[in-house]
């Protein structure tokens, strides 16, 4: 029998990028908040500049709860399940994956909120891809802008604004929606190669600009500026210059005296009372079961676990899983099409051994609806991103452009070329489809005996056409900068497990097709809020984290303003 703990106002499941942000406005408003985190605190000492540890051994994710419940994956209902990986792409820790993510902190563009209506308006209804369940968001960018702004200043984001109050600045992203004010910090510095790529983009008539990063380009809030030492990709920051929630919003929320952080809390289910309201959360630590009662539960455990916990939380009121009486939990799933990279070989060293993946030059000319699709056979597009990020083991494993992969010829090749290749990162519009979904795996279980999440999803024609189109643009860009060889990866098949996983608890006004309302609260269990990209109905062509954080702040603020109605 679980030990019943003292009641609290709000319990947050997961203190990562989303939950860690939501805790702050709640605590500042005087609500008592308990943050249940499966991982532990990690500190600067845990973040060694060690590629083996970060990128091959899953440290500091190596002892993670998430690694024991990695979802299974298959392309579609009739294909075989792929072998499960051994390292979950996300990590459990106070701060979650915001400790070791790339920290690219993009806003979505205006079109991403209005994909259906804008596509119909500009190109006609027939241009919505067949089988897609995409909907407009219940609001536009203007509604989210104040929250983007709050988060950018609260955690610290460096970047170059391209549109302040409608004034276009060609040094920034000229396609971005209007923002109230510039970024709180200037962009991260460039390198010779980034500059070369910037010049090449301009000569093609494109609009290159430095990307936004939740990394300090100068000291911010008494934390250091970035050291550019080169171990940011799946590595935590040894000087706290990466603005994870573990060094920003969470300690600030703790300082109010209202946030209690409970580490190593492995949440198993959410409890529901006879009236269909959630009443608290069950969790296990070292084999001991606890029940944490709460007036409101905020679920913030990443897309796969959000879906799984809802489906595992069955009750009289919700026999098919919490908030799933309309069978929408797990639907509208998609993972960002970030694959299909283009790799180029240059006849000169790029001097890319240091830096970070959030340091680079972006082109948005071929993203979203920033170009005319009238004569194209797809909608959406991709953000082209060229960053400074190279580590030795990965460099040795570089694409050899058709040459042998080992032996003396290979060795001579990498001796000359280890610092001469570059792989682009192209994030592409990805849509939800009728037959892409998450559910519980019928066979695989975690160590506590609960089924793991199962992904059934594949990229469709629209995503593959965007991939081929953006590969053309990327190759053009590399060639303009002097590349002598270019290799394109296949355009994509099964979606598989991803750090950019969306849907499963989509947000929208229509309760028949969405799990949460426009403020992130369940259509069916009114005191259950859901945070994370699981509420997002479109991906845009940019990293989701800042949008997730802006939404989390907005949900928390809504809860504070409506505490009497939602919390009691």
């Amino acid at each position, binding site marked *: 029998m679980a030990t019943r703990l003292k009641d609290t106002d709000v319990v947050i499941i997961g203190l990562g990028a989303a939950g860690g942000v939501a805790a702050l406005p709640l605590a500042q408003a005087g609500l008592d908040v308990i943050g249940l985190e499966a991982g532990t605190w990690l500190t600067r*000492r845990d973040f060694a500049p060690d590629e083996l*540890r970060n990128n091959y051994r899953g440290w500091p994710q190596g002892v993670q709860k998430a690694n024991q419940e990695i979802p299974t994956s298959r392309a579609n209902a009739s294909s075989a399940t792929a072998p499960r990986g051994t390292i979950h792409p996300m990590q459990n820790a106070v701060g979650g994956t915001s400790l070791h993510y790339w920290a690219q902190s993009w806003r979505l563009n205006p079109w991403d909120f209005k994909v259906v209506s804008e596509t119909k308006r500009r190109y006609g209804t027939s241009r919505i891809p067949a089988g897609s369940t995409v909907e407009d968001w219940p609001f536009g960018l203007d509604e989210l802008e104040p929250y983007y702004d709050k988060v950018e200043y609260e955690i610290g984001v460096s970047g170059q604004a391209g549109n302040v109050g409608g004034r276009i600045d060609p040094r920034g992203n000229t396609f971005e929606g209007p923002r109230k004010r510039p970024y709180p910090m200037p962009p991260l510095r460039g390198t010779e190669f980034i500059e070369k790529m910037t010049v090449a983009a301009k000569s093609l008539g494109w609009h290159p600009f430095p990307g936004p990063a939740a990394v300090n380009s100068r000291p911010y809030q008494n934390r250091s500026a970035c*050291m*550019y030492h080169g171990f940011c990709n799946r590595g935590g920051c040894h000087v706290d210059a990466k603005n994870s929630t573990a060094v920003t919003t969470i300690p600030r929320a703790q300082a109010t005296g209202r946030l209690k952080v409970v580490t190593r809390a492995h949440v198993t289910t959410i409890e529901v009372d006879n009236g269909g309201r959630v009443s608290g959360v069950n969790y296990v630590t070292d084999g001991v079961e606890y029940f944490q009662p709460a007036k409101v539960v905020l679920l913030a455990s990443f897309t796969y676990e959000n879906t799984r916990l809802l489906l595992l939380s069955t009750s009289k009121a919700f026999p098919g899983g919490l908030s799933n009486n309309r069978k929408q939990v797990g639907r509208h799933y998609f993972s960002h099409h970030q694959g299909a990279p283009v790799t180029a070989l240059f006849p000169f060293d790029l001097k890319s051994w*240091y830096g970070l993946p959030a340091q680079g030059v972006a082109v948005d000319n071929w993203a979203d609806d920033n170009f005319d699709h009238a004569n194209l056979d797809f909608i959406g597009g991709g953000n082209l991103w060229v960053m400074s990020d190279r580590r030795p083991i990965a460099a040795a*494993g570089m694409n050899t452009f058709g040459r042998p992969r080992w*032996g*003396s010829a290979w060795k001579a090749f990498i*001796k000359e070329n280890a610092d001469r290749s570059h792989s682009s990162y192209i994030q592409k519009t990805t849509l939800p489809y009728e037959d892409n979904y998450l559910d519980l795996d019928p066979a695989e279980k975690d160590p506590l005996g609960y089924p793991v999440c199962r992904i059934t999803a594949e990229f469709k024609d629209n995503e593959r056409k965007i991939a081929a189109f953006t590969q053309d643009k990327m190759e053009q860009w590399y060639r303009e900068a002097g590349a002598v060889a270019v290799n394109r990866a296949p355009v994509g098949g099964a979606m598989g497990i991803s750090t950019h996983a969306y849907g499963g608890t989509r947000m929208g006004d229509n309760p028949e097709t969405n799990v949460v309302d426009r403020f992130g609260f369940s259509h069916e269990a009114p005191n259950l809020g859901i945070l994370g990209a699981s509420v997002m109905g479109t991906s845009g062509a940019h990293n989701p984290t800042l949008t997730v954080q802006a939404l989390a702040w907005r949900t928390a603020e809504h809860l504070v303003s409506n505490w009497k109605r939602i919390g009691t």
Partner: protein
Amino acid sequence: MTFISRRDLLKRAAAVGAVPLATTSHVGALFQGGHDVRPERADLQRDATAPREPLENLTAAEADLLDAVVARLIPTDAAGPGATEARAVHYIDRALGGPLASSRQAYTSGLAALDRYARSSHGKAFAELASADQDAVLTDVESGKAAGFTGAATFFALVLSHTHQGTFGDPYYGGNAQFVGWDLIGYPGVRTMVTAADQQRLEKGELKTNHKSAYDYDAFTKASGKTGAL
């Protein structure tokens, strides 16, 4: 001190009577290699005295065979030291008892299958074959065409990946000895800070290579600092 090739190392060891645990098949493979060329750079020199250390996971025969394999994957040749000098097998042997433990069985069966295929296709144990024949065997294993070797391509990819880790990973883990892997690809070294001036030096080819492990920095060792709550 000059660069000591494996062949010289064995000769020298024999001369002083401290014969290392090398099999005759080893010596055979080395002498038929034809790739033992001395690198020119003095900073690639390696101490000839092999440290006294056990095989932690591989058997002696498995280690000998794996030595011969990695010596073909990243050979010691005109481009400098290879996986042998990096001590990639030492890295793999240690890691198989820890982070790579799930691969232990793959080495047991894969190495046995590889040797069996060498005998069936070329009539000799892998380590006794001439380099060109060893390469032919490995090419068949890589492409999955090695008859009677189920999962050959997967095993090859596994070994190649671990050989990269043992050659280009942080030296703390027992490979990349004397930083030979990092020097091969021109990696200028682990730093905890790269200033704008450092980056400009790098771009001008003036940045001094920093031969350091991550754990040469106190900040990341057990000894340092104070940690907060769990």
